[in-house]
């Protein structure tokens, strides 16, 4: 459900969400709770990937693990070179673990991130999962 707010037409709407810069895009869940924030311009593919990241986060926070996993997968399929991709590898594995209690999936993640996205902060975050 897309909402467009011009900050000069609706400054209260802008400040309501503690926004400080434009462009800013927020992904809110059905209860209006912010789940993802994108500040600054992004090229189309990066922006699309970030939107999917937001929807995945909505599903994740609703404990819809399979739905979250599918959305992270979609990012990896459609936007494998985006900044959202390594984050998706990480959270896809967490979604799988949360849904199944199968911790072995986490052990694969450091290797994947080191191979595909070695400079990503997500590669560092996954280091403790190395088996």
């Amino acid at each position, binding site marked *: *459900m*897309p909402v467009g*707010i*011009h900050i000069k*037409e609706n400054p209260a709407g802008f400040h309501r969400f503690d926004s400080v810069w434009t*462009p*800013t895009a927020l992904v809110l869940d059905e209860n209006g709770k912010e789940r993802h924030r994108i500040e600054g311009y992004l090229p189309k593919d990066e922006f699309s990937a970030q939107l999917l990241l937001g*929807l995945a986060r909505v599903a994740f926070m609703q404990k819809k693990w399979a739905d979250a996993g599918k959305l992270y997968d979609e990012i990896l399929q459609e936007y494998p070179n985006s900044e959202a991709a390594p984050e998706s590898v990480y959270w896809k594995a967490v979604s799988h673990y949360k849904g199944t209690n199968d911790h072995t999936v986490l052990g694969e993640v450091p290797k994947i991130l080191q191979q595909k996205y070695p400079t990503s902060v997500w590669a560092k975050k996954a280091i403790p999962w190395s088996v």
Partner: protein
Amino acid sequence: MAVSWNKDIDAALSLAKAQHKAVLVDFSAAPA
């Protein structure tokens, strides 16, 4: 595909709750 942008955040939130949908809020300062 053209996006149908809603300008009323509260109306959009009510609709989102009723339809169990997420909301995208885009803040812009760009000239119309």
